[in-house]
């Protein structure tokens, strides 16, 4: 890749930015007083793959810190700026990076920072009944003192001023396993607009993490999402280990890799089957879920629970893989590998499936870059980003594997990315089992973490998962920020759904592998 030659440090130095190399990713840029837009522009010029990963808001006492986390193809930069608490306003960046719209809304909701010029301000994750002027992530917020407004009783209108019919999908709808609301404006059978209302699963995890010790925090962040739970745990413990400067034993790294890949396997098989359910292909759903069960049994064997593994901890893993279990794991994976050609042929050749998936929800490469999408959605549109390759963590640097990229950009391509990744995951687990190093699987770590902050990225089954952890020298973290992959991918759905047939909305939607418990936290 030619982009790897670009050194963003030199570019930023040349433009006289105040930089601290090595802090919060590759570099931290001090950009107070409205210079954050200039810094972002400089980064955008460097590389076409520059995207805003997350915007962290943090209560710093008198000021509110707003950190823009920006990834380029070979580096990760953080633009830091501060706004006074009594007048927290900041210029928006949505005109530069349209994909940052949701991030800004969230900071407004949780910390009260107003982004001047944001196209659609409004409630984002907090409940409708939330009182005005109360911001849960500020340090002076007391949960016991909130008085919720009475729920509004007015009915939603079923048509808008232009005479279009509004179909409300959710909060309870068979196409969604999770309670979220999407108001779809249709003209006949054609979708004209989609208005999302997320936040039904908002449980305040980021705030709760501040009242749990680092030990308990692992169990809490795992339960942000039941499907990619190990990825959340990995992202969190790695960030804490970065602050602690703990070196994890190699055996633990390999075991973590195996758990992460088992997670990816079960998640991808789940989605591939679920897509079948959305397009009325129940047989496909049943077959995929049948073949997913052995993976769940493996997860149970390796970690002690079928779904939520609770197997990772700061300093290593809580359970070793027994030598006697390795042949069993290999046999199960070999059995799954035998079934893959059948499924691949289904996804490639089955006529009715192709009719429902091809040219549905097509996201061009340009839009994918602009909207900052991640994971299989980006890789299905020809954007080759994969944290496992770009910034290897755990044992991924030592394990050879292919990065799957399709260029069609439609639902079918995204599904095929997942289909191929299932095969890759099996390869990775088999390689890791063959090269499993000996030695300890856990090191002792102190309960109290020294002051410091760290960012960390992990490739979850749905894409890049981002964590920011700040410690204040106690056993409790000061701030835990989570940016989940679905959060970054929803704009892609909102864009591609417009102009489609209403019947294409469910397959398009499920091709993002949406996970709202992640998105809302």
């Amino acid at each position, binding site marked *: 890749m030619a982009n790897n030659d670009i050194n963003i440090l030199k570019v930023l130095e040349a433009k006289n930015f105040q930089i601290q190399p090595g802090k919060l990713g590759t570099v931290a840029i001090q950009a107070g007083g409205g210079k954050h837009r200039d810094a972002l522009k400089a980064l955008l010029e460097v590389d076409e793959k520059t995207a805003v990963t997350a915007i962290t808001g943090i209560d710093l006492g008198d000021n509110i810190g707003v950190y823009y986390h920006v990834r380029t193809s070979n580096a990760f930069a953080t633009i830091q700026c501060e706004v006074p608490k009594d007048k927290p306003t900041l210029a928006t960046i949505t005109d530069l990076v349209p994909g940052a719209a949701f991030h800004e809304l969230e900071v407004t909701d949780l910390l009260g920072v107003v982004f001047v010029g944001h196209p659609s301000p409004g409630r984002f994750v907090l409940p409708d009944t939330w009182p005005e002027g109360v911001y849960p992530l500020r340090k002076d917020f007391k949960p016991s003192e909130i008085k919720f407004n009475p729920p509004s009783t007015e009915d939603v209108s079923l048509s808008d001023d232009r005479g279009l019919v509004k179909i409300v999908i959710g909060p309870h709808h068979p196409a969604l396993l999770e309670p979220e609301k999407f108001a779809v404006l249709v003209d006949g059978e054609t979708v004209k607009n989609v208005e999302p209302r997320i936040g039904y699963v908002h449980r305040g995890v980021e705030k709760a993490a501040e009242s*749990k*010790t680092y*030990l*308990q*925090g692992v*169990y*809490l962040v795992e*339960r942000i999402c039941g499907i990619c739970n190990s990825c959340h745990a990995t992202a969190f413990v790695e960030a804490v280990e970065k602050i602690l400067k703990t070196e994890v034993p190699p055996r633990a790294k390999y075991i973590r890799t195996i758990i992460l890949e088992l997670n990816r396997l079960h998640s991808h098989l789940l989605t591939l089957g679920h897509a079948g359910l959305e397009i009325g292909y129940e*047989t*496909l759903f049943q*077959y995929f879920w*049948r073949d997913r069960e052995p993976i769940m*049994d493996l997860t*149970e*064997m390796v970690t*002690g*629970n079928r779904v*939520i593994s*609770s197997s990772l901890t700061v300093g290593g893993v*809580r*359970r070793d893989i027994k030598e006697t279990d390795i042949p069993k794991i290999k046999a199960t994976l070999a059995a799954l590998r035998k079934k893959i050609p*059948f499924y691949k*042929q*289904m996804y490639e*050749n*089955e*006529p009715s499936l192709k009719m429902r998936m091809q040219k549905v929800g097509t996201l061009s490469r340009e839009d994918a870059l602009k909207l900052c999408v991640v994971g299989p959605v980006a890789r299905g549109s020809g954007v080759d980003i994969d944290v496992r390759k770009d910034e290897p963590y755990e044992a991924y640097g030592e394990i050879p594997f292919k990065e799957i990229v399709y260029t069609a950009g439609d639902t079918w391509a995204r599904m095929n990315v997942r289909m191929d990744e299932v095969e890759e995951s099996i390869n990775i687990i088999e390689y890791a089992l063959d090269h499993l190093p000996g030695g300890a699987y856990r090191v002792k770590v102190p309960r109290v973490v020294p002051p410091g902050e760290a960012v960390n990225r992990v490739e979850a089954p749905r894409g890049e998962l981002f964590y920011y952890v700040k410690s204040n020298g106690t056993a409790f973290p000061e701030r835990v920020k989570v940016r989940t992959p679905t959060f970054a991918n929803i704009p892609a759905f909102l864009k591609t759904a417009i102009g489609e047939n209403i019947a294409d909305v469910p397959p398009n939607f499920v091709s993002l592998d949406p996970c709202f418990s992640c998105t809302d936290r």
Partner: protein
Amino acid sequence: MGLPYGVISMAKKNFLSPIFSEVLNHLFKKPATGKYPFVKCTPAEGFRGRQVFDIGLCVSCGLCSRDCPAKAIEMVDVNGKKRPMFLLDRCIFCYQCAESCPRNAIKSTEIFELATTNKSDLVLKPQPLDQKAGVSNVA
């Protein structure tokens, strides 16, 4: 001769997806369904089921209660000493309590059939040490 063969191979490749035969095969094969609840299900070794608390080993340190992420362990008074009471309805079965316990008084089991129609069944009170073997909370 060439043409029909070509048509067949094309049809096989593009239209006759493998599901045609797969579905028919399954019609005559045994279903993949397990026999539960008629046959008991044994989880894999090391499955995190319900905890068993050994009151004889407990030193009333309260570490289990302090480390529990779900606040599912309350220290209650039994014969003048603080002992852990497990609230299984809140328990997330992470076994941090077993890990934190300095005397290994909390042990694992593979019991998972905990469903009940009465919520009070889910509170495991520490039993005083008058039962044999000194192990309480055994189903």
